[in-house]
């Protein structure tokens, strides 16, 4: 069996970084990355980008050496993607942030409101209800991150975490988060810190007013609160149902072997299969059209491509009505805008991929948007 030789050069300086001889022809890029790490331990595989051309696209981990357009001496170019952080850590951090911040305001920790209000409790029921709802929302997300969603491409650049944390939820806009599909690799986004501050700021901004000593409860009293709470709960259940349905589209057995740290190589995003990846990242490959299941909440799939986003917007609208707080309404609006962009992208991908895609479906709002 003829062995290959692989030389790895720095993409920018063309400096020879590593020379590997006696590489098996059927070796994958992932294996080559592991070999490279041995000589340069500071560059663990997740932060390596290897490509055939210094300015070209990254090779995928599953690419096989002999299938690449190289001679028996292959030249690969290396780019450092920067410190990487696992997606699970990303989500846990970005969901724990708003959860924690809100509670600081709820408990009226000192230096937020006047000293005489330190550690006091609001006399309005709706304020306590709001805390429960908001906290439930983020706890649900944390649990989904740990037990429902499956992640592909184990990591993302560390710089991004500040960006997404702020959102308090996974806003996987292609501009915001890179496409961690198996075809491309994550690259750091420059707006990282900005987005983080922005969204964590929003969480603090909302929490400040809802838990303020001068908070004014809703105009229509208990009626309004009950209705809004119902909307919120229904949408939370709906959102969870969609996540489960999406996860079930691709049974666990079909996944490639788990990568490092017990990270299953699947896809990034809410829900199980490739779809959530698609849900946020236009251009990624879908495998299956999601259809309604026995669960009535999933029947929204008849009308909408991304019902998880629909339910998400619904939850926040419910929360806004319940608290009758303008900052919450503004936050819902911003979230809606972002999710609409993603939903449209995913919808477009679906249409491209499937000739027989149900024509009745709209991206996010039935019949409208």
């Amino acid at each position, binding site marked *: 069996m003829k062995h290959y030789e692989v030389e790895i050069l720095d993409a920018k300086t063309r400096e020879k970084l590593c020379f590997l001889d006696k590489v098996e022809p059927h070796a994958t890029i992932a294996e080559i990355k592991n070999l490279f790490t041995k000589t340069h331990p500071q560059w663990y595989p997740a932060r390596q980008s290897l490509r055939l051309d210094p300015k070209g696209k990254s090779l995928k981990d599953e690419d096989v050496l002999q299938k690449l357009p190289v001679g028996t001496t292959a030249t690969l170019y290396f780019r450092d993607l920067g410190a990487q952080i696992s997606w699970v850590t990303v989500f846990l951090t970005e969901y724990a942030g708003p959860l924690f911040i809100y509670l600081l305001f709820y408990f009226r920790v000192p230096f937020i409101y006047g000293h005489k209000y330190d550690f006091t409790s609001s006399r309005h029921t709706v304020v306590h209800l709001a805390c429960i709802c908001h906290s439930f929302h983020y706890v649900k997300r944390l649990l989904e991150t740990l037990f429902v969603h499956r992640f592909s491409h184990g990591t993302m650049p560390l710089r991004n975490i500040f960006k997404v944390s702020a959102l308090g939820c996974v806003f996987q806009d292609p501009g915001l988060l890179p496409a961690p599909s198996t075809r491309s690799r994550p690259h750091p986004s420059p707006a990282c810190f900005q987005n983080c501050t922005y969204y964590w700021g929003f969480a603090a901004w909302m929490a400040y*007013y*809802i838990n*303020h000593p*001068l*908070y*004014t409860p809703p*105009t229509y009293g208990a009626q309004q609160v009950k209705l809004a709470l119902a909307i919120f709960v229904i949408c939370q259940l709906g959102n969870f149902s969609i996540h489960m349905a999406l996860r079930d589209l691709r049974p666990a057995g079909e996944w490639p072997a788990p990568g490092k740290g017990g990270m299953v190589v699947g896809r990034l995003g809410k829900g199980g299969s490739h779809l959530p990846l698609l849900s946020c990242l236009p251009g990624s490959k879908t495998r299956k059209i999601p259809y309604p299941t026995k669960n009535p909440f999933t029947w929204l799939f008849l009308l909408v491509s991304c019902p998880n986003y629909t339910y998400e917007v619904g939850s926040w609208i419910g929360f806004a009505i319940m*608290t*009758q*707080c*303008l*900052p919450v309404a503004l936050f819902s609006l911003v979230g809606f805008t972002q999710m609409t962009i993603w939903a449209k992208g995913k919808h477009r991908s679906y249409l491209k991929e499937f000739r027989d895609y149900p024509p009745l479906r709209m991206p996010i709002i039935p019949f409208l948007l």
Partner: protein
Amino acid sequence: MAAAAATAATKGNGGGGARAGAGEGGGARKKKGPGPLATAYLVIYNVVMTAGWLVIAVGLVRAYLAKGSYHSLYYSIEKPLKFFQTGALLEILHCAVGIVPSSVVLTSFQVMSRVFLIWAVTHSVKEVQSEDSVLLFVIAWTITEIIRYSFYTFSLLNHLPYLIKWARYTLFIVLYPMGVSGELLTIYAALPFVRQAGLYSISLPNKYNFSFDYYAFLILIMISYIPIFPQLYFHMIHQRRKVLSHTEEHKKFE
């Protein structure tokens, strides 16, 4: 900042052939410009704007000569200033529609900051209208805009005199800091009146559980000049080197 952004940010209102706008450095000629109808419209737009700012310039000079002093000249050019500066909002539309190859975000930022100063500060806080700082930024803007709009006009017609190009990429060195100073001083002068009147501010409690302190907001705006102004300024300096040295090379071959 509104003064600087105006020169720095936009690549030009059109300028199909001679792409010497900020950010291009006069090199790229491969892009095709807007269609003939769009070009005609843009030429008219830029001519009208040039004329408008000339009216403001002339108005300032005449008022100065009539009054004998440079104080409180704002009142004599208040209306055309508001009209033509607000009219610049169209430039955002031009970018959005695509007939001008500039970034919508950058253009919006630039125009909105100008409009903000005109309406939310100078118009809203009557007491600052007699301040000299207003004259400072009005003069800076007027000269900048006359040059900028004529630059675009000539670019669209593919007959850009070197003088205009030179002026656009040189005068900003003085006009930019001048404008920024005028703007900052005006906002600063407005502060006590905003505080006193509680202008554009809403406090708790209210039924939408929202509050806004315009005074604090203005202070934040002033602080934002610190990171933004140097960036725009040095970007223009960089552009200047690119654009003017490139032209020098072209001239050598003539």
